[in-house]
């Protein structure tokens, strides 16, 4: 890739894909996967998401390992980004909670308040 124009084209294409442009009911599941997240137990969480989404044969769902989100004391953290622009962060996620998130939030579209980062009692 040699020019700014090519870069721009790639950027627009990648942005569309990342944020599920034009996709109805697209979901991007970001699992915090820095060393802090891994140490807190992000691997079973990630694997649960991957396995369950596969079993349920859901389309337009992407599961992505991302870096540290910053709230290290409350990891594993998971951010759910939907194609309608809504963003939700869950914290202290376990594989069981991941299952719940798949069922309640991904499938039914209901946020689970008690696991929200913004609502956690500090």
């Amino acid at each position, binding site marked *: *890739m*040699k*020019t*700014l124009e090519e*870069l*721009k084209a*790639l*950027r627009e*294409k*990648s*942005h569309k*894909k*990342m944020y599920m442009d034009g996709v109805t009911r697209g979901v991007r599941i*970001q699992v*915090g*996967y*820095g*060393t*802090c997240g*891994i140490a807190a137990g992000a691997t079973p969480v990630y694997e649960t998401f991957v396995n369950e989404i596969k079993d349920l044969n859901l389309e337009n769902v992407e599961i*992505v*390992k*991302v*870096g*540290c*989100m*910053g*709230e*290290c*004391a*409350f990891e594993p*953290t998971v*951010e759910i980004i939907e194609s*309608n*622009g*809504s*963003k*939700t*962060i869950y914290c202290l996620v376990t594989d069981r909670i991941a299952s719940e998130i798949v069922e309640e939030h991904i499938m039914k579209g209901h946020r689970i308040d008690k696991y929200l*980062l*913004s609502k956690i009692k*500090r």
Partner: protein
Amino acid sequence: MLDRMHILICGGAECKQSNSVEIRDKFKSEIKRLNLGDDIQTALTGCFGLCALGPHVLIYPGETLYSGVKLEDVTEIVEQHVAKGKPVERLLFKGNFDRSKFRNRSELTFYAKQTRIVLRNCGVINPLDINEYIARHGYEGLGKVLTNMTPEETIDEMKKSGLRGRGGSGFPAGVKWEFTSKSVSDQKYVICNADEGDPGAFMDRAVLEGDPHSVLEAMAICGYAIGADTGYIYIRAEYPVAVERLGIAIKQAEGLGVLGKNLFNSGFNFKIELRLGAGAFVCGEETALIASIEGERGMPRNKPPFPAVKGLFGKPTNVNNVETFANVPVIFLKGADWFKSIGTEKSSGTKVFALGGKIANTGLLEVPMGTTLREVIYEIGGGIPNKRKFKAAQTGGPSGGCITAKSLDTPIDFDNLIALGSMMGSGGLIVLDEDNCMVDVARFYLEFTVEESCGKCTPCREGTKRMLDILNRICEGEGTMNDLDVLERLGKMIKDSSLCGLGQTAPNPVLSTLKHFRKEYEAHVIDKVCPAGVCPNLTNYVVLDNCIGCTKCARNCPVGAIEGKVKEKHFIDLDLCIRCGACKTACPVNAISTKPESWEEV
């Protein structure tokens, strides 16, 4: 990301009279109408203090203040600023405002006061997919530089931005780049110092694991500016995840053609290789790092000559820290002026802090320079847990000093922290409460430094060891007042005459705690007591009167030092007690004390 934007509407009495509540509601409805997402918080806050010019609307990030906002202005603000990021010029507050007034806001969360520039992509993109980096304007800075700017213009922009080294030195990066570019040589190098060694610091790790491409792009921009075609990332081997991700990122960048030959058709070549450290803190010092890459023992060298003149393999080399580099692509994307507008006059931009210790929200946070410590610790950090009292905050790790409660309102920047007897360091911020013994904390840091000293120069190698010997004796109850005097004189000498930064700053924790907590040292030395109840030899465990006789302490004691009947006050035999603290942890009613005031009965 959590809450992408915060829109704060002044809810003071005056502004309320001028429809601030309706304004808030209109913001909400406009945002919903334009489908801008759930992550934009709107809130009514306390009075901003500029009543004559209200209603006010303050938007974060960027701290944009609008004044005299009318209901019909809301749509324009939402369409221009919220949706497209373009502030509405005509509504901007034109006068001076005193930032210190904006502190009684109650609706803020962890991210509201943060300005994530270095961490812009951390937790947002998949670090193993270069396309996601590109989706977020990755490599656009490099493209712009190589297509539209000369090396001299690149350096000018860096200088204009005022970016100062984030590894601890605070040296202006643009000036360093300029020195290296002015050196004449057939070969030059760019080095990224990723040997993050401060205990408790993990800012660089987060960037390397979460956004490795930002460093690669920055190094390429630097190479272009100074005339180098080769870069090395010296990364500590204790970061295997980061090492792996960097390796993958480099391959992907090469595959795409943003690293390698003839980048962006400019004729400029740049390649990057990794070099792993082997467990030496001192290799974070730039000349020791260079020695290590050369295959020599990692020991610092004299400066001058500086690496900019004679560095790796004797060639001009520019060494910068990970966080410093992570700022670079954004500076070229958004401009030096934009960067300069964040932070303070002499310290522009942000700083990432690794918040640790006795604090509710341990983790990484990034704030504009000028944010006060109080804001960081209480508003972002969530304060001290378990209702304990703040004692001190240690910045700069083993090179820094402690900051006491009376300095909490100091705006954080390079110069202010040095004036307080500490330093910015790499960004570790450890919060200590009343249960920490400051002598023990100083000893902890000195133990680290003594272990990590390379041994080349006399004051650091021998002097810090002797300081540690003295501290150990003090903590064991064998200190004397003369020892305190020796600590001070020795500390000053080591600071004045050590060869490198490790030695020059090693005495800081001791000198700083001696200065601010002298009484605590004297208690150890004269009264042979540790007021915080930490040093085992100087602590007694005592059962207080509110003991309910539940026997939990006795059952948890590993040496059977506690006696007592059920429902009766228990008693600890101090001759048997090993000061492990198990009883104190087990007690459900906080009836076991280590504080000296409770010792009268002993």
